[in-house]
């Protein structure tokens, strides 16, 4: 049995962490004049919006060429998958693994995890045991921390494009998928940031509250 700050009418400022008392849903922090709220405004909605945008752009990011390489010995347009396959066939399976994890597994895992979290919070019929809640919270922390690493592919392309510019002999250019892929990474990060993890516990408090009043 526990109480939440929100149930006591207390809100903490996200900027200066000052805890203040408020009656209304929205208020202004008495110390730093930031907007303070019990929970982040429209957290679930924002998260969904960024997530949907990321999923949309995930399709071109994987189907369109990521890197346009041309040299005296021919030219090639590589998508993420073909790059991974190339590395794998080339024998550099560890590199292939890294790229595969960073560029394919992580974004898709992030998106799937976010969807699960969002649905768990949002759907009323979902029973959340304390253990599951803890797993959800851990998942959220993991995806929030590894988000920036999925930009690996973009780093590679960006590096090659600037380094390998011998004009006549060889050149590497970023393909249209680079833009989409970059957007996917940014959008998933935004989605993660916009989600308020406290929502995971709110449901259980509500339940507790209901049980207490009953």
């Amino acid at each position, binding site marked *: 049995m526990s109480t939440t700050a929100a149930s006591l009418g207390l809100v903490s400022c996200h900027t200066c962490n000052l805890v203040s008392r408020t009656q*209304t849903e929205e208020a*202004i922090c*008495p110390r730093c004049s930031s907007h303070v709220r019990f929970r982040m405004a429209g957290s679930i909605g924002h998260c969904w919006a*960024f997530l949907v945008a990321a999923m949309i752009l995930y399709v*071109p990011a994987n189907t369109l060429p990521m890197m346009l390489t041309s040299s005296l010995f*021919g030219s090639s347009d590589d998508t993420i998958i073909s790059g991974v396959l190339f590395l794998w066939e080339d024998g550099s399976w560890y590199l292939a693994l890294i790229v595969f994890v960073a560029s394919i597994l992580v974004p898709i895992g992030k998106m799937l995890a976010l969807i699960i979290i969002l649905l768990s919070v949002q759907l009323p019929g979902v029973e959340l045991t304390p253990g599951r809640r803890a797993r959800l919270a851990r998942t959220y922390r993991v995806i929030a921390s590894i988000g920036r690493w999925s930009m690996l592919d973009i780093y590679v392309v960006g590096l090659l494009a600037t380094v390998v510019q011998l004009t006549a002999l060889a050149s590497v250019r970023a393909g249209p998928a680079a833009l989409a892929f970059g957007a996917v990474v940014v959008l998933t990060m935004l989605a993660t940031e916009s989600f308020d993890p406290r929502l995971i516990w709110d449901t259980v408090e509500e339940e507790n509250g209901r049980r207490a009043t009953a």
Partner: protein
Amino acid sequence: MADAPPPDRIPSALSLPKSGKTFPFVWLVPAVALIIGAWLAISHYLDRGTTIIISFRTAEGLQAGKTKIKYKDIDVGLITEINLAPDFSGVIATAELVKGAESRVVEDTRFWVVRPRVSGSTVSGLTTLLSGSYVAMDVGKSSSRSRVFTGLENPPAFTTDAPGRQITLRAEDIGSLDIGSPVYYRRLQVGQVAAYELEKDGRSVRITCFINAPYHQFLTSNSRFWHASGIDMAVDSEGVRIKTESLVSIAIGGIAFATPFDEVEPSPIAKDMVFELHRNQARAFRNPDRLSDDYILVFNQSVRGLQPGATVDFRGIVVGEVSAIHTQFDPETKQITIPVEIKIYPERFTSRMLGVRPTSGRLGTKGKFMADLVDRGMRAQLRTGSLLTGQLYVALDFFPDAPKAKLDLAQAVPELPTRPSALEDLQQTLVQLANKLERVPLDTMAQDLSHTLKTVDTLVKRLDTEMAPTLSEGRQTLVELRKTLAEVSKTMNQATTTLANAEKSLGPDSALFSELQDTAREFSRTAQSLRALADYLERNPQALIRGKGD
């Protein structure tokens, strides 16, 4: 969580009025993402361009996803897929052309693989050693688009947009020509051999050449082409002549052409015109024989040494050739004849015959010209071209004394009357002479002759015996004669004196005197003669009987 913090220690936040429901701007983000994604996909799809299919014999140097299609050395496409043809006869390459190139892909657009090539005259495609082969494209002129093409095995010698003209030659053989062999005009390289192929019937080779602008304007329907390959060496009465076009053509062969400017009406070349590629320049400049008349000659002599292709000449000018020699058995007369078929090119007779340009078939109206010539005694005859080799040729000439003959123009192949050859003539005459000589009775003649000689002998002997007394008589006569002469001399002396008297009387200038003088001179000459005679007779008394010998 045992004790709640004292409420008064917690500051109160400034309340904000509850704002109304605001538009969820955040949902613009997926909308924008959708737009961007759609745009990327659409632009990528639009950039794909046209897909075409090119079939090649082999996929040598081709790589799916690597080999480019280039037009004027600019990438216009990429081979995306290479498959075997369904009947395994070749490969089928699927290529994707860049956007905008689809309007260039028309029916006669050509594709070929550029590989390093080193031939006698050209070295090309060396850059492909490093970059790998690529497929080159030459844009056609047709207006109807196409998707399926057959790749060329060899690069075309010229591109469609190159100014100039393409011509077709027909040759007996290819000689040392190859694709890219030069074409010369006045020893200037003006074009090259673009392609060659065997004619369908296998009897000749069809060579396609391209003459670059501006030299193609020197081409007319009268242009003559000949092999300029190698060295043309001729040994004849003028000595040894060696003709070549250039060092390059010696090495790799070539074609030369020239256009005689004296021809009457040079007409532009028809689209499907095929020129003859002659063996050498001399042959090329022979009058073209567009018309030929066939005749049959029947010889009753051996035609050993006469071959198909032997010349038919008219007083040294070649007017035709022997086309075939047969033997023919006539079952009625049981005779074997040797009909020799010849071709006569009537234009050679009439090249300088103004206004009588033969238009077709027989010269004149239905061969009347030839019939006239035969009427006037023209005959065919076998003659020896070379005493060493015994080669024969057919000579046409006039024999006014030849027996009358007519040219039967009703026959499909009229028979030209022949005449035995000069040698045969001589032979026949000799035989006839021998026959006549054989008929002469030489034996009896010899007997007669010896008889006559004997008679003469006896006659002479008789004369010897019978004439001796006559001779002695003659001698006496001579003595008497001398006496007489002495008397005459005396008389003469008297006469002289008389004459002197007369001279005195007549005077040196009188007519009588001069007459007398003449007479006297005459007389004196007579006397001299007589003296001479007397002397002679004295020395050769037998002259009286036998006459004056030598």
